[in-house]
């Protein structure tokens, strides 16, 4: 059984360690916040200028002056801080944010990521993605292993316009957990019931399989 979006988020949440400052991208990455284990203290950074992002507000807490980078209304937490966009990207560029989790359309075996533009389609802009991938010490990507037509999104070389070079460290897809190494995608875990052969078939880039590959534990 391939992992669904929530299961991908739940698996990524296992990578979040106590004391981390974490930036979560839009989509599946946002869901990671729901699965951070009890007792793990993390601070979520929202690149529009907030550290310590809290849950969505209740109806009577809604404040138009308090949104996240996805423009959703949110809340602060005890210990939160607010700052300008320049300060926000200063802390990103300065590698003070420990972990960035984001989505991708394609990742190459060298860790290049493409997630901002599809030629021929309306270009919406890169937002903060290029800044985040250029500077984060640890980048985990949440994505589907293949496109709807079955073609692989884990490639030798990205075909879409690049967001950043050699930056992705780990990938959690619906089929597998993989690490980007100098030799290629190293298979760490497979989704329950998904075989190594199926993952191999869905991976265009170099796949490294060493020994028994355990199933993802959620």
């Amino acid at each position, binding site marked *: 059984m391939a992992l669904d979006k929530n299961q991908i988020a739940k698996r990524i949440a296992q990578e979040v360690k106590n004391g981390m400052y974490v930036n979560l991208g839009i989509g599946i990455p946002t869901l990671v916040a729901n699965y951070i284990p009890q007792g793990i203290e993390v601070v979520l950074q*929202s*690149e*529009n*200028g*907030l550290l310590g992002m809290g*849950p*969505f*507000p*209740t*109806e009577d807490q*809604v*404040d*138009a*002056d*308090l*949104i*996240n*980078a*996805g*423009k*959703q*209304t*949110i809340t602060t937490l005890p210990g939160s801080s*607010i*700052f*300008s*966009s*320049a300060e*926000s*990207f*200063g802390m*990103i*560029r300065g590698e003070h944010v420990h972990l960035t989790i984001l989505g991708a359309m394609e990742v190459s075996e060298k860790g*290049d990521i493409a997630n901002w533009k599809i030629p021929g389609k*309306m*270009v*919406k*802009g*890169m*937002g*903060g*993605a*290029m*800044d985040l991938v*250029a*500077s984060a010490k640890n980048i985990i990507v949440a994505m589907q292993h293949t496109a709807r037509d079955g073609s692989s999104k884990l490639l030798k070389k990205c075909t879409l*316009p*690049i*967001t*950043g*070079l050699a930056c992705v460290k780990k990938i959690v897809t619906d089929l597998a957990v993989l690490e980007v190494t100098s030799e290629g995608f190293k298979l760490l875990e497979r989704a329950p019931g998904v075989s190594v052969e199926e993952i191999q078939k869905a991976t265009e880039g170099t796949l490294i399989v060493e020994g028994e590959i355990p199933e993802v534990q959620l």
Partner: protein
Amino acid sequence: MINKTVKNAQEALQGIQDGMTLMLGGFGLCGIPENSIQELLRLGVKDLTCISNNAGVDDFGIGLLLQKRQVKKMISSYVGENAEFERQLLSGELEVELIPQGTLAERVRAGGAGIPAFFTPAGYGTEVGEGKESREFNGKMYLMETWLKADFSFVKAWKGDTAGNLIYKGTARNFNPMMATAGKITVAEVEELVPAGELDPNMIHTPGIYVQRIYQGEKYEKRIEQRTVRST
């Protein structure tokens, strides 16, 4: 203390002309200079170059200026919420320059701080880096990016005083503080304008030196793009 107060948006925008480069604060619709935008609409100045993180939505924010074809060029990081924008872009009526968000923030900051250029890793190896000088520092590649300045900067703060000191609220701060520093004329609109001396100097986000004109906005709609709530 020098008094920066003007009566209203009309007085605040005096001297604005076709073809000027403007900065407009805000992230999405959060912290945008609503009243100054209304005055830009009323004046009908055109061929504007607008530097702003986003381009508003179809019927609010900078989207209103786009509807009236007042914008020649947008310099932004993300412009995804606007159908009229898309139409004008595809038809070639509108020029757009997309800049990584952190680079945009820093270019504006650099403009206000007198730093003509700086190096950042964002965009290296991508189409953003095409035609730009790059250099290696400690084994990593960086792009040279240059400062941005504006003829007019329009910012929005929560509170301000007659000396031009500003305090922002929540994430409505975003690009406003840097943009306040990078305009030849910076116009600040605030929800509450108080006499100099009433704001605690320790709490000021933007010192009044950057602000040439300040006024209290007539009304604030503060539209929310993604109203997300939880039940308990």
